[in-house]
Structures are given as C-alpha cells and as structure tokens.
C-alpha cells in the first residue's frame, strides 16, 4: 500500500508540474495578446453589447475606465453602499451607458 501511495504521489507531482507550466504559458500568452499592437484597435465592446446584457429600461450601467493600479474600495455595506476609486497614474473616466 505504501509503495502504491508513493507511486500515486509521484504521478500527482508530475501532473501538478504540467499544470504549472501550462498556467505559466497561458498567462504569458494572455499578456502578449493584450499588449499586441495589432490588437490595440479591436478589443472593445459597444453600448449595444452592454444593453444586450443589462436591460436599460430597468438597469443603470456605469462604466469605469481606470489606469493600472487604481485602487477600488467597497465599504462595509452595513455602514454604506459606498465605492471609492483612487488612481495614482492618471485620471479615471466614468460614463453612464446611454439608454438608446
């Protein structure tokens, strides 16, 4: 039984290492994707896209475009429904998604 367990743990070690390598590869690929100059123009959604997932007759959708490392803080709801944004690398833009 001991030898069987040792073999299983060795297999798990190999499997876990495989996953670590794949996660690393995917993370790098995703970063390259978002930084690829080719892709700068196309990763956008339209207001129509947003209206397709949030019914404008009932929902208000606020859009936040913030520079990297902006801190978003949500207070304890028991005190207040409060959201604060604090940027150190540039202005933050907030839009309301228009209904039409």
């Amino acid at each position, binding site marked *: 039984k001991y030898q069987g367990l040792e073999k299983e743990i060795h297999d798990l070690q190999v499997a876990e290492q495989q996953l670590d390598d794949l996660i690393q590869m995917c993370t790098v690929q995703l970063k390259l994707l*978002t930084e690829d100059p080719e892709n700068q123009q196309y990763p956008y959604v339209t207001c129509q896209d947003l209206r397709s997932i949030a*019914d404008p007759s009932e929902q208000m959708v606020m859009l936040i475009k913030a520079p990297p490392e902006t801190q978003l803080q949500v207070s*304890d709801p028991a005190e207040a429904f409060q959201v604060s944004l604090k940027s150190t690398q540039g202005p933050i833009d907030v839009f309301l998604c228009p209904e039409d």
Partner: protein
Amino acid sequence: RSRILVSIGESFGTSEKFQKINQMVGSSDRPLKRSAEVSTTPKPLKRL
C-alpha cells in the same frame, strides 16, 4: 469592519474579487433607503 480593496485598471484577473464584493453587497441586511419600492436590487446581468 469588512471592506474590500481591489487593484483595477488591468485586464483579466479580478473576476473572483468582484464576485466576493457582489455577494457582500447583495447579502447585506442594510435597510435600503427606498425598500418600499419593488425590485430595488439590481437584476443580475443577462447571459446571452
């Protein structure tokens, strides 16, 4: 008191934190200012 801080502004990687925030806000028993109104909580986003 519990408050949640998230670093934003980069693509990808924060979905989980927002799920936690939405659970915290959605489950709070704070009296809504206009609780008399029907369906004051936001309807969840649709999934196409």
